[in-house]
């Protein structure tokens, strides 16, 4: 499923991390409990941050390799 192209592969990985993060955040919003609040910030937020950083890294690494 993962692409052979390095940029596309990084993009796919960041997308998968973001989806997991968004699913966690969605479930936490539904739960409405204090532990849901912690998971929303600690797990969902962290996964989304990692996914976004991975996407930005893929952009930066592609830009630097094409210079």
């Amino acid at each position: 499923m993962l692409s052979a192209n390095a940029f596309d592969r990084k993009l796919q990985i960041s997308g998968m991390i973001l989806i997991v993060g968004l699913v966690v955040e969605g479930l936490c919003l539904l739960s409405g409990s204090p532990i849901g609040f912690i998971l929303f910030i600690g797990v969902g937020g962290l996964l989304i941050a990692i996914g976004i950083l991975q996407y930005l890294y893929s952009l930066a690494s592609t830009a630097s390799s094409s210079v």
Partner: protein
Amino acid sequence: MPTVLLLVLIGLTIALIAVFIFRPQITQTLAGKIAAFLALFALPVLCAGMGAANELVHATSTKFCLSCHIMKPYGQSLRVDDPTHLAASHFQNHRVPPADACYTCHTNYAMFGGIKAKLGGLKHIYVYYLGTPPAPEDIKLYEPYSNRECLHCHAGARSFEEGAVHTADPELLPALKTNKVSCISSGCHEVVHDVKNLKNSKFWKGGS
């Protein structure tokens, strides 16, 4: 933003991201690059930001505070049918918004008070899930209750400024305003959450 709309936004974002997982070659065009930026950066930031705001607002609700088992007696104490019980009379007479009753009295009305209250809440969660929570009747505030929190609403109010007991001693009002005498000190509004004696209490059935 209502939680349902937020969940719809999260669902749409997931669907858009999925397109880039299955067809990453779309990003070879300019429109694809812009769409990828939206799907993999702008929308997740928006979802996380709005979700965090939603969660922070929800965390101020009475329902949220009382969702921990240990807080149940404190929730019951809001329904004690006795006007001398401070928390109950505030809750039942809407002197505090019933939906945010705990937060209204237990937040800190100083600078960065909201942040301090949230950090205190995180400490509660840590103790509840990972520490050894005390029995409900043994729970103590981290700091003595400050009159500042009472005066946030009562300062300037006629019932407070001109109340017979408050004005009987000319030194009392200045002492209350400078927190030298506590509003909840002995002989004044001393019964707040009397969770030890709930078994002997009558409860108000009204409200929702």
